[in-house]
């Protein structure tokens, strides 16, 4: 009886001591949802991250050592992501953490990173308040909903000439945040709001929502949804015979999205921080390498994973060692040439300076209509905490 209970504890202790640091590599931990309903996007992010590490190692690694990327499944659940973070920091002794994807999971990992003084970078989580918590170890190389809304509202008004817009978002922090941010920005440009509605992740039938949309008198509809929900929604908008300009945020400008959505994708607009046919030699190289590795062009989340790992590896190189505060300084000094522009960080750790694109899907391809830069949020005298 007692033996039976002790055995796993012993095994645990033995395994833990066996994993004690033998630092001939630089270890970076990545937490992504690899199972569950967001696994599709989490896998894309992890693929981008793997490519970044492979390239860096081929070029000699960082600090003269090879980089070892340890990927853990956080399932976008706060508790599981904390488990993964504890394991990565305490058992694998990673020098830095990247990830957690969903803002809720990232939010739960942040205090862990702070407690263990481990630099933590997210390339995805968009909940605005994350960078306002005064956590010195936390950085975000992604746009917040508000920054994206601000960057695109002018473009959308100019390019689409909309007067009255309906807003539809997936019922999570990101969908709600995006719908609110775009509604606020577009209202600021004199665009009327026809309706704001949310739907649950995994919903399949949108006819009720579309009936409301048809009755709302909008001339354009904004959609915040990921590939799965978004493609179903866009298909049903076309089936329903609704003839409105559709524009959205999410991983829309990808070959998968176009393949799944088919003809219904024609003519829709997407506001994305990354699309594979952005101009520039740096992006061409990334797309070529990514396609060679995974047989399809990278989308928003693949680029996010690629960029966040590169930013972290640059910072470790710049730190000249694996000391946490040196890496934090290294992150603050970031000036990273990404496939989609140059990343820098504010004092709060919010990324800016990179490009985002308004694309239209035409003939099964993405056309870049315009690009814009995610501006330094301090430029208009807004918050500058800490």
């Amino acid at each position, binding site marked *: 009886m007692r033996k*039976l*209970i002790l055995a*796993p504890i012993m095994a645990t202790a033995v395994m833990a001591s066996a994993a004690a640091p033998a630092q001939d590599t630089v270890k970076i931990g990545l937490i992504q949802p690899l199972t569950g309903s967001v696994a599709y996007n989490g896998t894309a992010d992890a693929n981008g991250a793997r490519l970044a590490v492979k390239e860096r190692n081929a070029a000699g690694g960082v600090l003269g050592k090879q980089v070892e990327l340890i990927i853990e499944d956080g399932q976008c659940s706060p*508790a599981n992501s904390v*488990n993964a973070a504890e394991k990565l920091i305490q058992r694998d002794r990673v020098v830095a953490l990247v990830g957690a994807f969903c803002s*809720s999971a990232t939010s739960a990992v942040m205090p862990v990173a702070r407690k263990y003084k481990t630099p933590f970078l997210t390339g995805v989580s968009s909940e605005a308040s994350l960078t306002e918590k005064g956590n010195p170890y936390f950085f975000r190389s992604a746009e917040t909903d508000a920054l994206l809304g601000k960057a695109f509202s002018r473009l959308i008004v100019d390019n689409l000439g909309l007067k009255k817009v309906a807003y539809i978002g997936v*019922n999570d922090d990101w969908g709600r945040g995006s719908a609110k941010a775009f509604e606020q920005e577009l209202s600021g440009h004199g665009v009327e709001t026809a309706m704001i509605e949310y739907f649950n992740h995994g919903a399949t039938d949108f006819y009720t929502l579309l009936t409301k949309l048809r009755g709302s008198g909008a001339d354009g509809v904004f959609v915040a949804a990921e590939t799965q929900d978004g493609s179903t929604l866009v298909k049903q908008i076309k089936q329903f015979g609704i003839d409105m300009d559709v524009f959205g945020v999410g991983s829309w400008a990808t070959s998968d999205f176009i393949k799944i959505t088919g003809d219904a994708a024609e003519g829709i607009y997407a506001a994305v921080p990354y699309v594979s046919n952005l101009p520039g030699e740096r992006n061409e190289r990334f797309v070529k390498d990514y396609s060679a590795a995974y047989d399809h062009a990278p989308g928003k989340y693949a680029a996010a994973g690629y960029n966040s790992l590169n930013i972290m590896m640059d910072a470790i190189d710049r730190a000249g060692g694996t000391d946490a505060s040196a890496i934090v300084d290294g992150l603050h000094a970031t000036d990273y040439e990404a496939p989609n522009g140059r990343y820098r960080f504010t004092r709060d750790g919010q990324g800016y300076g990179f490009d985002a694109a308004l694309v239209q899907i035409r003939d099964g391809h993405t056309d870049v209509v315009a690009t814009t830069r995610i501006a330094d949020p301090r430029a208009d005298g807004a918050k500058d905490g800490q």
Partner: protein
Amino acid sequence: MKFERNTLLVLGLIALAFPLLVGNQYLLHIGIMVLLYAVLATSLNLIVGYVGEFSLGHTAFLGLGAYTAALLSLRLGLPAWATIPLAGVVSALFGVVIGAITLRLRGPYFVIITLAFAEVLRLIANNWVDFTNGPMGLSGVAQPALLADASPLMAKRFYFYLALGLTAVSLYLAYRFVYSNNGRAAVTVRENRFVAQSVGIRPFVYAMRAFVLGAFLAGLAGGFYAHYITFVGANVFGFAFMVSMIIMVLIGGKGTLIGPLLGALLVTLLTEYLRELQELRLSLFGLIVMAVVLFLPNGLMGFLNHRRERNPSDAADGAARAQGGPA
């Protein structure tokens, strides 16, 4: 009874020494999660093991506890020693209401109605943005003030002993319940409702007491979860937690006090150590769950008790073994 009590004491002593012997914070973290799940599994076991009804809505009480503690801490600034007991009380109050409705049903109907309650609460938590902050969740739940200057290791030890205290309270209450007239009446109801009624036991009353006690303990666990993880979102009401709890109770052996503890220990360690297998992890976990149902139908405790019965040297203890019978 003696065997069960002695084993519990030994387990308790091992647990008391554990944080002092182990300096690895990851192991301590796993230890804390094991204890959190031990409280949850013990509370669920009161319903599954002693009322004999299969609740799939027990996360309702975990979630209510977690949200209560998080809201009291964030909105009113109450300290953890107040929020965690209050979390238990609020869950118990909901337990009275939900139990009064659901315990009138039996079998699959009970399974589904409890699940429906948990889902309704999850959807409310996810959509009532003004009160629960909706899908954005409640972040930054304060840790106890005395940890302000503590090192991470000390904080981990503190949380470990706090969780151990909660586990001890849960086991004590469960033990008192099981070995009281209440518990014996509940077991009689579980084994044969009609006989129980004929000797004057009112099944509903006893089932209700077990249900409310279970809700209270799950609420305590929820309160602890809120302060330890520091983030509470609607997923605390979700089916994933429910699946973990139910697997722990049934793998350990329902209707015994030690079974759920063993289940919590095994399943938590298993899910953490299967991480080594990366993608294969959850497929394998599913297979293990199926294998346990097929080869250990009464859980680990059922298996151990069976072994002890066949082993004559333990026969004296075996006579007083916990009442884990087939459903």
